[in-house]
């Protein structure tokens, strides 16, 4: 005990460090978190395999469920709150989310455009309307997936 108190006085700020609590005080939070996480996981797997949803909507739904589940984990498992003890944690999280968004979103965005621009000459032949003022002419008779020439969206 004396060792603990020596440590406490040596390098711990005043104030109670760890409160003794009755077992089960925070159980509700974990149970809610578990229930929500299970629900969102089930929803994700169902959406990924179902045939009744419009296909392009599936990735959007998956991302939504994933972000929701991450929020559930943060709030109910990691106990991230808006309280004063957590202000710094929230700020760090906001910065982390910004970096992750820049890294992931930026990579996918740039690489998608590079792929698109490098594929275009093969698909569209020589008809690349790169000059300004030349309107893009979609060809009605072909109707393929690559009617627009490369770089058309600049």
């Amino acid at each position, binding site marked *: 005990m004396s060792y603990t108190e020596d440590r406490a006085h040596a390098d711990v700020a005043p104030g109670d460090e760890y409160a*003794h609590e009755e077992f089960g005080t925070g159980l509700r939070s974990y149970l809610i978190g578990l229930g929500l996480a299970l629900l969102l996981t089930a929803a994700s797997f169902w959406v990924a395999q179902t045939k009744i949803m419009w296909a392009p909507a599936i*990735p959007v739904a998956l991302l939504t469920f994933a972000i929701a589940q991450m929020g559930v984990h943060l709030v109910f498992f990691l106990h991230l709150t808006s309280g004063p*003890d957590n202000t710094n944690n929230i700020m760090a999280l906001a910065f982390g989310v910004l970096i*992750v968004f820049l890294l992931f979103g930026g990579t*996918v965005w740039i690489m998608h455009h590079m792929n698109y621009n490098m594929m275009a000459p093969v698909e569209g032949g020589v008809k690349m309307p790169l000059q300004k003022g030349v309107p893009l002419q979609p060809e009605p008779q072909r109707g393929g997936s690559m009617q627009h020439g490369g770089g058309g969206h600049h």
Partner: protein
Amino acid sequence: MSDSAAIPGALPGVVPIRRDPNHLGHHARGEGETRATGRGIGGPSPKRIVVGYGFWIFLLSDIVMFAAFFAAYAVLRGGTAGGPGPAELFDYTNVAIETVLLLFSSFACGIASLALDARRALVFQAAMAVTFLLGAGFLALELREFADLIARDAGPTRSAFLSAFFTVVGCHGLHVTVGLLWLLTMMAQVFAKGFREDILRRVMCFSLFWHALDIVWVAVFTVVYLMGSAA
């Protein structure tokens, strides 16, 4: 102090504290952020808060690293080099079982930290043991999946897609492995040294780590497995 006397609702005889204008703090009436530790008149934060903040910074940097691997996977997903693609390789049932195992492992870890708050050594050890078993089960399923893929000539050297897949999922598995070793260390330390303040902080960091791994796994099963086969 003179302006704070004008605050309505302040108790007579008590020196009023400036109100938290946006009610950011979860404190009672009139007692806002300024009395919170770490700023203002609150004095320095307890070491528990400071350690948790530092470890949280580490976890975020870890998540940024994972984001780089996810970006690589998203870019290389189509680069199968004529080999097998996501749709024919991934087994949804296996991934679902892995997900549920890791989620319940995270839940058991939460129970362990509750037991720690209540200073119940036996409940703590039991919950940590359950956490370990569920985490080990997750790892076993993942290793079995890897072995199965390699046996089907779909190892990391097969294509860019599989390299990215093994990198991101294997990195998460490596984290789980380290976490399991850390878990055993924490069980031993609580057993040998009791509920000392420094031990409590270590267990808190471990539980943050374990929950963060579950968050990363949410991204793994969504981006790598589900979106990988859907798109």
